[in-house]
């Protein structure tokens, strides 16, 4: 998983979006992966050997996934991407300026989203006994 996230960062860099690549490293490699690892350690302390890693209908899932990939692949190859000529690099400044001018609103809303995620996560993850006592 982490390898995959890391490779993607490389691709972003190739695509001329270094800031996205940096963010990828920071957020995915740095935060999300650690979070997930942490959760895995928390949850699988007891039963290390899982009886069935896969769902019984794994073949159905595989088929559906293959169809999805096939369809998208077909769409990719059949479309004439005439505009697709060159990689246009996007400078950090462009993104930064845009983010705080044109894209200010989505950015602000996003901050609300993060806020509620934090509030909710704290509420859920806090131990139940604390409900009544703490506040």
């Amino acid at each position: 998983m982490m390898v995959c996230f890391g490779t993607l960062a490389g691709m972003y860099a190739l695509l001329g979006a270094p800031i996205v690549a940096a963010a990828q490293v920071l957020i995915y490699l740095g935060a999300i992966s650690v979070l997930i690892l942490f959760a895995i350690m928390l949850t699988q302390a007891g039963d290390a050997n899982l009886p069935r890693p896969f769902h019984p209908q794994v073949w159905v899932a595989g088929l559906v996934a293959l169809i999805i990939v096939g369809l998208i692949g077909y769409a990719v190859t059949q479309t004439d991407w005439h505009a697709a000529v060159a990689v246009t690099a996007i400078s950090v400044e462009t993104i930064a300026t845009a983010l705080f001018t044109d894209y200010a609103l989505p950015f602000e809303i996003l901050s609300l989203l993060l806020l509620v995620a934090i509030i909710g996560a704290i509420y859920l993850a806090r131990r139940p006994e604390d409900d009544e006592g703490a506040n």
Partner: protein
Amino acid sequence: MGLQGYLLVSAILFGIGAFGFMARRNAILMLISIELMLNAVNLSLVAFNAYGPPGSPAGAIFALLVMAVAAAEATVGLALVIAIIRTRKTAEVDQYADLKE
């Protein structure tokens, strides 16, 4: 490797994510699968941006925002997993079958 190449990689990544989501029955692994799908989206966004009309950073910025959304999702998701493990002691979704008739 051109736009098509990136898009194909993104498609495969999306497919793997979807497969993982449908096939795996562990809540955390399902969450990881969703993260993979979001990454596929990001890759396609950045690729579209790079090969699209020059000068507009929409795709790249969208990708940044999606990353933040993904982080929020991961936070909430893991909090949910922790809460449910408190009451059930397992992360296997198959065993969460109380909500049936």
